[in-house]
């Protein structure tokens, strides 16, 4: 049996198999690019949304929250937070604005980021944009 399956056969499976599935992956990626315009909500990426994404990044929001299920599991999912807050932009802004500087004794609390009004608008617009991406009905319910 040992001689029937040789090392060079194993090597050929490695090179051939990897190359084939890498090409298949690239083909699927190409098709995914074609499918995106209908579902990725790109038409709503305004300059304000872009600025909101940068604000999201430079405050490391993903270090506590998930966004479309990816990130840290310490704080609530924010991909659908716009809908969870009843599409009420002022409520989201009010929540961010009201975080106590020294936290809440014994409990988890979001830091106070001292955002300007313009920045608050940016982050809310970004979260609204994220909530309108077609995610195949994920999360299962409004709680995220």
């Amino acid at each position: 049996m040992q001689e029937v399956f040789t090392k060079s056969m194993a090597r050929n499976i490695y090179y051939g198999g990897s190359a084939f599935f890498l090409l298949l992956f690239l083909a699927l990626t190409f098709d995914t690019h074609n499918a995106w315009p209908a579902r990725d909500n790109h038409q709503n990426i305004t300059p304000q949304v872009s600025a909101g994404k940068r604000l999201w990044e430079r405050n490391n929001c993903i270090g506590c929250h998930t966004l479309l299920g990816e990130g840290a599991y310490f704080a609530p999912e924010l991909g659908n937070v716009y809908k969870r807050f009843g599409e009420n932009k002022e409520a989201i802004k009010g929540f961010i604005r009201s975080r106590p500087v020294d936290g809440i004794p014994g409990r988890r609390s979001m830091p106070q980021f001292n955002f300007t009004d313009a920045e608050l608008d940016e982050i809310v617009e970004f979260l609204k944009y994220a909530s309108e991406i077609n995610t195949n009905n994920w999360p299962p319910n409004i709680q995220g």
Partner: protein
Amino acid sequence: MQYQSQSVAKLYFIAAIGLFVAQVLFGLIMGLQYVVGDFLFPEIPFNVARMVHTNSLIVWLLMGFMGAAYYLVPEESQRELYSPKLAVLMFWVFLVAATLTVIGYLAVPYATLAKITGNDLLPTMGREFLEQPTITKIGIVVVALAFLYNIGMTVLTGRKTVVTIVLLTGLLGLAVFFLFSFYNPDNLVKDKYYWWWVVHLWVEGVWELILAAILAFVLIKVTGVDREVIEKWLYIIIAMTLITGIIGTGHHFYWIGTPEYWQWWGSIFSALEPIPFFMLTLFAFNTINKRKREHPNKAAVLWAMGTAVMAFLGAGVWGFLHTLAPVNYYTHGTQITAAHGHMAFYGAYVMVVLTIISYAVPIMFGREAKSNAKQVMEMWSFWLMTISIVFITLFLTGAGILQVYLQRYSDAPQAFMIVQEKISLFYWMREFTGLVFFVGVILFILSFLPDRKAQQV
């Protein structure tokens, strides 16, 4: 040690273990913040502790891989390292960059760090695991290229073995896929899609090649089994890794704005991802059973067997647990993911780096194995760490199942923070188990200190 230049690995191994300690300490801080929410707040908020925890993990594993490569490539290639000086220089560049980055995380707010490192010029920060300032990322690319050049020149001008070719392919892939960390479009869907090209294609792709190559090298050395047999196994294992793992990336594309068909591609191929890990287990046990010699370093053999088993459990079994799309619909982004992450990273990558350290460090100090007493201590560290990670994983799995039920599955779904309080018992148990893990880490380090002289006992 057959070649003088192999000793550069020592620097990498020491730094790796130092960062391992930092990683676990910050893990303990985060674990406590899960139940005592205001612990160290606002000085070290959770997101900062998490960055240190995950980033130091990534850096110490990379250091471990590099140390492993510098150790094993000269021996496999039967020549000195192409440039030991470059290897030492790159070590210091890497260590200084990593240290400055961690100091940056801890000393100033993240937004300030982004500002002073010029993130606006090329924004790459603030994405999970890729939080490093852009300048650090550029540093990582420089170090990786210099490292690849050094290893590549050694491999290509020396004896070529399957171990070195597989290792080199893995390291090349590691460098290439990291380049996607510089692509950060405004379009969140595209951002996430290509973010996975770094994260998934690293840990469920090319890193597995590095893992298999290191493990094969150690097994050749400690068992004396014929290289031909081991090399055939190696090829077939990594073939299965890439055949299942590349399309398996699709299991991350279920809910991020990508087409529905990824649920089929991702489910089917990632359900096959445990196969190469199972083959790795069979391979390790078969090889050790057919050993031609009794290597005096019993601890290293234990680590090698442990890697094979725990990689299969953590990456294979716990990965499969939540990889099918209908299941993942409920488990995505919960403590189930955290449970899998902990056992998979420990079982596959932490353990393989500890395996090569366990095997190589005594040799670098001029003997084949440590004293019996020190080996016993090292085996204690093996069991403390391994059993702890099993229980950490079980507790997080328990937390995750409850979280999924209360927050997503029951008829009256409850809010995230309310559910978190209800499952806090599991977080407490995880934290205590983490302390035991830390004892294991300390014992591992102590087991490498010199023996006391017999008279002093």
